[in-house]
């Protein structure tokens, strides 16, 4: 256990005095002020927070948008890490000890593709394949029918 770290035993489970010592009206003021700081961090303006009519949906939407932004930010950080990993990986052969021909691998020629782009390409390829198969089947049956008609005509001619 590191020095100075709080353990479960050192944190009071209930601190009765703390809540009761603050009068109710001050608790409301503190709650509203904290809410203002929180909502301003999420992009709401000071004026909007204090003067707009009560609207829980608005607060909910601000919070959900903020959550999405944080998720995007987290993904961006992860993506940056992935690019750094690729770059370092490409340099490894150049700096490897006992490597007779040290040469860096080329960096990625294009950015990573989005998962949705890959899925779209797969979907389009599948659709094209299905259309091609359907067309081939149609062409085969059409040709087969045409051949059958041709043989029938030839047979009729021979009989005549």
């Amino acid at each position: 256990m590191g020095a100075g770290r709080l353990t479960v035993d050192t944190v009071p489970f209930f601190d009765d005095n703390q809540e009761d010592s603050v009068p109710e009206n001050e608790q409301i003021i503190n709650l509203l002020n904290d809410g203002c700081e929180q909502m301003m961090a999420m992009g709401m303006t000071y004026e909007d927070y204090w003067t707009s009519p009560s609207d829980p949906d608005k607060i909910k939407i601000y919070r959900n948008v903020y959550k999405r932004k944080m998720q995007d930010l987290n993904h961006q950080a992860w993506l940056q890490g992935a690019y750094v990993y690729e770059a370092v990986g490409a340099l490894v052969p150049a700096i490897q000890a006992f490597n007779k021909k040290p040469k860096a691998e080329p960096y990625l020629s294009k950015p990573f593709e989005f998962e949705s782009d890959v899925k779209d390409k797969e979907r389009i390829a599948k659709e094209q394949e299905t259309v091609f198969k359907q067309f081939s089947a149609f062409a085969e049956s059409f040709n087969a029918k045409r051949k059958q008609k041709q043989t029938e005509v030839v047979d009729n001619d021979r009989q005549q």
Partner: protein
Amino acid sequence: MATRLKFNYAGKEYTLEYNKEQVKRLSAQGFSQELMSARPLDAIPMLFKGAFGMHHKNVSNKVIEEIYDNMGDKTALIEMLIKMFAEPIEDLMVEPEEASKITWEQVD
């Protein structure tokens, strides 16, 4: 949608409503539920007057008192004012949407 109270007095339309600014102002003046229980005769006029702050800041105390005296069904009025006062605080209690944690199924 915020709860509003509308009425006409002496040919003028009034809308009573609370936003966070007015809730904070009234709380700073000492209004609380404790005061409502301990000294309702002081707290109720405060609560009524505070509801004018959002849309009718310049109405005099005298007019507000006159309006209050003429208001019918005071019990319902006070309940409505308490609800209006609580709404801006309750706004802050909403939680962001999360994926449902419990799945359920029908059992015959």
